[in-house]
């Protein structure tokens, strides 16, 4: 239990997926203009990464390892994730229309989110069991949500500030992200 907690805190705060590992930067910089859309994106990412880490972990230990096909992991994982996102979209549309309306627009964007594939590969590299993989996936996704919601909040505040013309747009967002990364480095002492 203690080990699981350490994995969750480690992946959510200490090794934050965006601010210290640079995975999932495209949505982090792109979908963070408003807090509400950022939260929607975060929720969709939590949903997909958790399911994807379970699926890829099962496929790796159940199919690739027994058949000695581990060298195919990159190809298999990306196809599984792409298919999974499509499948989740269809199921949500049919079964839980309210959730689909909230998350629907963000789901197609997630296939190309490198955090999903990154978590799947890290789980394999660290030789996590199924349970540990799911906890690691969930922690990573929660870390992503925390970071993107904070960034969106800051961007809403600085929108009408007087910023040097050259720094308007992307550069000021990058500087903000850099300052957040410094703050998150403070978590390094937690574990």
């Amino acid at each position, binding site marked *: 239990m203690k080990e699981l907690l350490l994995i969750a805190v480690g992946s959510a705060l200490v090794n934050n997926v965006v601010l210290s590992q640079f995975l999932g930067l*495209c949505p982090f*910089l792109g979908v963070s203009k408003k807090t509400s859309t950022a939260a929607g994106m975060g929720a969709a990412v939590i949903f997909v990464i958790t399911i994807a880490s379970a699926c890829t972990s099962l496929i790796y230990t159940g199919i690739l390892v027994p058949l000695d096909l581990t060298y195919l992991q990159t190809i298999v994982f990306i*196809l599984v994730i792409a298919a999974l996102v499509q499948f989740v979209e269809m199921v949500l549309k049919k079964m839980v229309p309210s959730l689909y309306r909230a998350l629907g627009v963000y789901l197609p*964007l997630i296939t190309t989110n490198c955090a999903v594939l990154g978590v799947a*590969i890290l789980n394999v590299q660290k030789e996590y069991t199924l349970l540990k993989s799911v906890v690691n996936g969930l922690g990573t996704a929660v870390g992503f949500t925390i970071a993107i919601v904070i960034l969106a909040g800051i961007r809403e505040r600085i929108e009408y500030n007087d910023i040097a013309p*050259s*720094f*308007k*747009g992307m550069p000021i967002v990058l500087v903000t992200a850099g300052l957040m990364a410094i703050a998150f480095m403070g978590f390094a002492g937690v574990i």
Partner: protein
Amino acid sequence: MKRALERLYNGIIKENPTFVLMLGMCPTLATTTSLMNGIGMGLTTTLVLVLSNVVIAALRNLIPNGVRVPAYIVIVATMVTIVQFLLEAYLPSINDALGIYIPLIVVNCIILGRAESYASKNPVIPSLFDGLGMGLGFTVALSLLGAFRELLGAGTVLGYRIIPEDFSISIFVLAPGAFFVLACLVAVQNKIRAAKGKKPQEGCNGDCSGCTNRCGNPKEEVEA
């Protein structure tokens, strides 16, 4: 020949994937802790880009339109796996330094973007040079970022000491430094664009199909 040179110029200067199109941000920030790592990542991506562009251009009339994106992803993933094994065998130090970011080349927007907007519509040879140009443009950007971070953070360039150790600012080698250096480089570019009367840079909106559209140059498509 003229077309090949035009493709190289387009990739390195006119549509530089990092500075102009703002694509492939994850490896750009993550692997540029030193100049050597930046060059390594840039050249690895170039190799994958050239190989996948050539294969996709060769198969462009065989792949049905409805399943083209999954087909491209499989081709790119295959090339990445091959390149990863080559690195493991011949350049283990680069492989260790880049680690998880090598398999993640699969989800680099630049590669799918070029496949969709150029290689799927053009013959093999121009696609090869398109991949080479874009890859070299990416390498130049990564080297620039890597060189700045290594110089400021560790006081060295390619391992040679330039600034005495007491004056190095180690935050530039760590994660926050990547954001700051890129912010400054984009700001410099905005300054240049403003002088030419162009609008400042906007990042991608997290939607890679949007990136693909921006990569696509409508004029070329008519030519082809």
